[in-house]
């Protein structure tokens, strides 16, 4: 059987098999949004691999029995699980499938890829643990890719993820990990975009944060990004905060990424032009309309051709979870609305 699917073949509904990130990237591509091409190693590969380990060393049962409060037990258990993941060889037919998909994706020249975890947990969990589930950037050769696939699987058993699941008493066999393998973009600038205000929850504004180089510097908080607020409908740019972007993330010669200083002349220059801001706004609106709810998006500007690419989009969760009272509801007599102005503070 096949364990890999191209982005074009998957969508959000496939989330149980391809995880949140994989489903979202497929969904974006289907919606006509440009994303760096890639494929997903589905959760059945993970399940098969896990079954091999569980054949003589049960993992899920062990995790399920952990006490959420007993952090040292969790740490011990996670270390044990991770070493099992490191020791167990990858089934050869699976490795072969990844190799073929990779060759198809990157050709013989072997463009560098990102290897990213794509868990089947809820978006909120995904969002909270975005930093804990591993992502490996600028992975250059197949051997490394295969190794990182295993690392991604194992990151499901990081201390943070496990204690989060234990605190919420989540069912272990409902949790699985897919892995996204995607062409790496050598971004000129990258960052995040929220299609509602992170500070007020306003759905009529788009907040964009960006800095030079790869988006990992912004997501990881290593640089203070430039920040803009745009009217979602009007495109008016109401906030422009250009920061001192002293460093950027760049691909390292031997694979992976490195932090390099930004030349003095670019540090205080805006990392996006107004045209790029408007292009992002347009894309943000399309994605939001496609999903029917505000989105939390990672984007990059391709250094080669200036194309705006999305690396990730997930529903915004912070404000969505707040039970906001409607600003007003229809009134039997529409004129009574004016009492909000004429009636004084205690109406």
């Amino acid at each position, binding site marked *: 059987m096949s364990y890999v699917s191209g982005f074009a073949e998957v969508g959000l509904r496939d989330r149980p098999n391809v995880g949140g990130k994989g489903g979202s990237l497929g969904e974006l591509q289907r919606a006509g949004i440009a994303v760096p091409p890639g494929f997903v190693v589905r959760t059945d590969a993970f399940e098969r691999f896990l079954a091999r380990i569980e054949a003589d060393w049960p993992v899920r049962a062990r995790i399920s029995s952990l006490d959420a409060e007993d952090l040292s037990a969790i740490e011990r258990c996670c270390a044990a699980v991770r070493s099992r993941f490191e020791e167990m060889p990858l089934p050869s037919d699976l490795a072969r499938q990844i190799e073929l998909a990779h060759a198809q994706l990157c050709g013989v020249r072997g463009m560098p890829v990102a290897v990213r975890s794509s868990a089947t947990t809820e978006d909120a969990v995904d969002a909270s643990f975005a930093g804990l589930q591993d992502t490996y950037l600028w992975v250059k050769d197949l051997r490394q890719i295969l190794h990182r696939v295993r690392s991604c699987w194992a990151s499901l058993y990081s201390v943070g993820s496990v204690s989060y699941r234990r605190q919420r008493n989540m069912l272990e066999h409902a949790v699985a990990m897919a892995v996204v393998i995607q062409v790496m973009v050598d971004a000129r600038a990258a960052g995040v975009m929220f299609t509602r205000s992170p500070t007020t929850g306003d759905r009529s*504004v788009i907040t964009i944060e960006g800095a030079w180089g790869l988006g990992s510097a912004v997501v990881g908080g290593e640089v203070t990004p430039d920040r803009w607020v745009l009217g979602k409908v009007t495109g008016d740019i109401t906030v422009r905060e250009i920061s001192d972007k002293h460093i950027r993330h760049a691909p390292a010669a031997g694979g992976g990424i490195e932090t390099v200083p930004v030349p003095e002349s670019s540090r205080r220059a805006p990392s996006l032009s107004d045209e790029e801001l408007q292009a992002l706004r347009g894309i943000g609106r399309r994605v939001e309309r496609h999903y029917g709810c505000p989105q939390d998006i990672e984007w990059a500007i391709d250094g080669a051709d200036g194309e705006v690419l999305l690396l990730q989009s997930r529903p915004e969760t912070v404000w969505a979870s707040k039970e906001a009272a409607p600003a007003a509801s229809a009134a039997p007599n529409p004129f009574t609305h004016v009492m*909000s102005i004429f009636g*004084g503070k205690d109406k």
Partner: protein
Amino acid sequence: MSAQEPPKGFPLPSSLRVIPGTERAQAAYPYTVQFGAGDDQRFWFYNSMHFPEPMSCFDMVTAEAAYCALGAANTRVHCLPTTLGIDHRIINGRVYIGGNAVTDPQEIARRTAEFQKRAFYYYENWESLYAQWKRKMLALIREAEALPEPALPEFEPLEHVHAGRGIASNHHLLEIYQRTLEGYFRMWHHHFEFLLLGYGAYLTFFAFCKKAFPEIPDQTVARMVAGMEAEIFRPDDELRRLARRAVELGVDGRFAEGVAVEAVIRSLEQAGPPGEEWLRELAASRDPWFNINVGDGFYHYHRSWNDDLSMPFASLPGYIARLKAGETLERPFGKLQEERRRLIGEYRELLGSEAERAAYDQMITLAHRVFPYVEGHKFYCEHWYTNLFFNKIREFGALLCAHGFFPDAEDVFHLTHYELESAIIDLMNAWSTGSAPRGPAHWPALVTERRAAIAQWSQHSTPPALGPVPAVIDDPAIVMLWGITRESLDAWLEAGTDTASREIRGFAASSGVVEGTARVVKSVEEIGRLQRGDILVCQVTNPTWAPIFQKIAGAVSDIGGSMSHAAIVAREFGLPAVVGTGSATSRIQDGQRVRVDGGRGIVTLL
């Protein structure tokens, strides 16, 4: 507010001094408007929006008549639940006003019941009542136009005698004067018949948008509501039309910067049929659209375009040049309306629920229904009628001047309307007794003194507000008409203490960033100083200055909200504008370089 904060406040009225040497001019204002006992306990603010310059004794009638009518509408007619009328005081020629809040919950409840019976009826029947309003207003205008010019013949005309009229011409002076004054007071009642209800319905939608979309710029809400075909835009539209006709008729060469109106007209008269045709077009535009004045209509010297064609003519060469450069001058109504529809639809789509969308629909529907009045009334009231009123007073000035009361007909505006009536009666008596009137020995010295006082007063700035700052500004009239909120007062207080700051904050009225030379224009006479690319800095921007908006690069005002006409015109011209700064005209030096950030509401001194 924390308890540790020192109490905030502006100077007390009692601490304000009449400028030395102007005490007698100050005393000319009636006792009712002098600051006095009890006034220190109240909050007052300088109404620089309507009265940006020290006002002469006669012009004070505008404050008196307007607040009389505003108060009647709020207190007795519509019975606004939380506010009564507005009191006014005058010192150093400056008009300070203070609201009368209703705070007793029982009284608010009682007034609420009354309000809903009255206001809701108006909303229900808005279109028919507004149509009736226009008829009333036009009838009032026609009545004022029909008033004869006051005159005193040497002998009563024989036909009057033969007709047995029985009333001599001197009596008609009083009749004409009193009808003139009565008409003006009546006009202000018409003015306020719908105003607060209209603004209130608009603000209801505005407040909803701010709640549903906390970061929505004021100007975006304004764009969703503002119409594009209000009467107030017509005069400028007519100018654009006349510019186009001049080009079409091939007489555009007759217009040039700096050429006197009389010379242009003479040259057109000599230009044969095309020139005559253009002059006919001009005549058609003038009635009624040139009945617009170069200010807000509250000062006698805000002359109408009809009275002084130099203002409209000054902008014709610019419009003609733009046409010849291939620009289309006509405002793109279709495009603007399409854009408005798009905004309304797309914001609606962003709302969180169907319940909110239904409320939004109800509120914007009402805002659109009331807005033609909110935008349109000014043309009839503050412009057309006010011009007629001041011109009639000017006729009395000419008559009194002819009888030696003062050297110049315009001097009449240095008499209060009470004094003017006494001067008219003086003249009536003198005409009847055959004695010399007493006025010529009485008025000239006073007029000289008062003219000098106004010149003095205009050299001195005055605090933006007086007295203790109220914890909340819950008076819808003050919030709506003057855009004054607790936040704007705090900003004013801060501006008073922090004069070293290079930034002046106000309402973000029209987005965009521009740098330029500031022209601080303190009165309408000075607008001729504006050069292309200048930043207009004034106490209150005025929509009838629209033609100069084609010249300037940005606008800054001391007072006004995002729905002030200046903001609307600035948005239409795509000019960055910051309004309601409280202090721009006193903090910015004429000729200084400034940056206007109209999207953030910040003016930076460079």
